[in-house]
């Protein structure tokens, strides 16, 4: 029995691409690619930890880019961000198809990797749009519009542009409490940050770190939200269909207590 090679990486996209590089370099035909923290000690496996290498990663990505269209590249990245267990292997297998085909030759769209990647990318995309819609900022005493989220997929990298374009003249921070990092805009550029005590910025800390008028605006918003409701047209089913309950935790208008 041949031992199965497992390539472990740090969870970053560059890390994953580094694994692809190594797999090609060392002619490992069907590795399993997995995040370090998902490791498990199976028998008959060779675990190899791959150190993220930007240059190697770039070479893989450039090669991929030269053989695919921009929307395929975006789909690939989105599927990666889904963090669904085993997605790396589908992505790797798809990359191999791309690399083994002559440039510009159309691949069969019945290919099951592509179907899966498109499907997953769509799910990630939907989550991206929901986060863009349902983020609620609260203004801190030092003038940073702050929001915490815990999306199903790792969508922060995808929403940077939207928020940067929209809120170009205010500082803002969107923090993913599950993945323990955030994106912070300081009026010039967006950076990735991690907080030592993320609990401090949770919405319930309103008395401590948020501006005094913050509560007032939240109340105004919920007043508005309640006033636009037309009772005689109530339709709870439709309501929850558009606004699934798991997103309610973000929404000021659903959480304000009078």
């Amino acid at each position, binding site marked *: 029995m041949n031992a199965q090679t497992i390539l472990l990486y740090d969870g970053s996209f560059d890390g994953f691409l580094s694994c692809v590089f190594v797999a090609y370099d060392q002619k490992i035909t069907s590795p399993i690619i997995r995040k370090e923290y998902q490791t498990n000690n199976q028998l008959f496996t060779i675990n190899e930890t791959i150190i993220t290498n930007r240059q190697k990663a770039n070479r893989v990505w450039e090669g991929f880019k030269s053989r695919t269209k921009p929307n395929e590249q975006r789909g690939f990245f989105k599927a990666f961000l889904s963090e669904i267990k085993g997605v790396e292997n589908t992505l790797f297998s798809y990359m191999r198809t791309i690399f083994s085909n002559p440039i510009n030759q159309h691949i069969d769209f019945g290919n099951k990797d592509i179907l899966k990647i498109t499907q997953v990318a769509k799910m990630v995309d939907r989550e991206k749009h929901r986060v*863009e819609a349902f983020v*609620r900022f609260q203004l801190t005493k030092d003038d940073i519009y702050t929001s915490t989220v815990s999306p199903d997929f790792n969508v922060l990298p995808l929403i940077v542009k*939207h928020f940067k374009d929209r*809120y170009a003249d205010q500082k803002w921070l969107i923090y993913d409490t599950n993945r323990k990092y955030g994106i912070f805009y300081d009026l010039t550029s967006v950076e990735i940050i991690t907080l030592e005590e993320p609990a401090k910025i949770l919405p319930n800390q309103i008395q401590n770190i948020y501006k005094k008028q913050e509560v*007032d605006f939240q*109340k105004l*918003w919920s*007043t508005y939200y309640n006033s*636009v409701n037309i009772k005689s047209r109530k*339709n709870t089913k439709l309501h929850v269909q558009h606004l699934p309950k798991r997103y309610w935790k973000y929404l000021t208008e659903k959480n304000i207590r009078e």
Partner: protein
Amino acid sequence: MSFDRIREKLSILADAAKYDVSCASSGGKRSNTNKGLGNNTGMGICHSYTEDGRCVSLLKILLTNHCIYDCAYCITRKSNDIKRAAFKIQEVVDLTINFYRRNYIEGLFLSSGIFKNADYTMERLIQVAKKLRLEENFNGYIHLKSIPGASDELMRQAGLYADRLSVNIEIPTISGLKLLAPDKKHEDFVKPMTKVKNEIIQYKEEKKIIKSTPRYAPAGQSTQMIIGATGESDWDIMRSANYYYKKFNMRRVYYSGYVPVLTDNRLPSLGTAVPMLRENRLYQTDWLIRFYGFSVNEILNDTHKNLDVDIDPKLSWALRNLNLFPVDINKADKTMLARIPGIGMQSVYKILQARKFRKLNWSHLKAIGIALNRAQFFIVCDSKDFYKKELSAISLKEKIVKNSSSKYKKLINGQLSLFS
């Protein structure tokens, strides 16, 4: 500002504005090039949903609910004994900006009761928009109501700052208007509409020659009609809608089921159900006319003045024109394909694409996503196996209704029993 007072105003003036159904925030592209606030990508975002499932994307309020008119259908009318309030211009600006910065909204939809006169009111609406654009550098969405009777000069200014302008004609017929809004004139509605239409045309012309021509109402204009307040038929309504689409290049006509808010013997009594199903059928008809190549008279006419409640307007049309069916999926042209019940425009394009390569049979059609439970009675395809039985329109209808599950079924049964 005093928050309690603002809060009271907000609840009064949002409540009074909510019967306006148009909430679209899409269409007006405005990018954030000046490092200002807001970026309108042309794709509306719903930031929340009301408990009746409507999209909340704009701060939709009246500047004031003081009004010199007495339109019977309107909660704001002069003779109605309600709390009145008025925002200051700066208050609306502050609310909009603070809501926008917190990612609650895509922009502002500002309407107003008419105080003093049309121009006085319109001028104030414009001031809000102007402040937002020039002082706050705001690139979010702004929809202003055009006040009936406002002057051409003001309408021109309004379009420089707003993305969309709209006048609600509210009552689909002139006679209905006379009955319910006796002091309003039809011409007053038409005047700002005409001006906006002409400005848009002129803007497009000038833009061709001078690139820097200031933009004018990039999301166009729309209007709204109240459904079920007076006795007009669906035919009346759609003829009016068609007139406004054609004459004023409307982007959208909205149909709003009348919500009884007042006791008035000219109107349906309080507690009368909102005609949501009828509203839905009108939107379907509107769709058929704008995108499916139907004319109003095919769907509604002298012998068929009202839409069927239990089946959609396309099916209803097909049942009245069974002589045109069955249609051969592999031969029919685009227009005819679009007229088959159960086949949407997207499916039409898919059929046209797919049939270039092969003759389509039932399983192809299924894969394309056609609602065969309805379409099967109206088509033939590359199969010997098709619906041959000669059926009368009535029994065909029964068959289809029995097989389909409408999300409105409960409503249909309810409303039908009301009618019978």
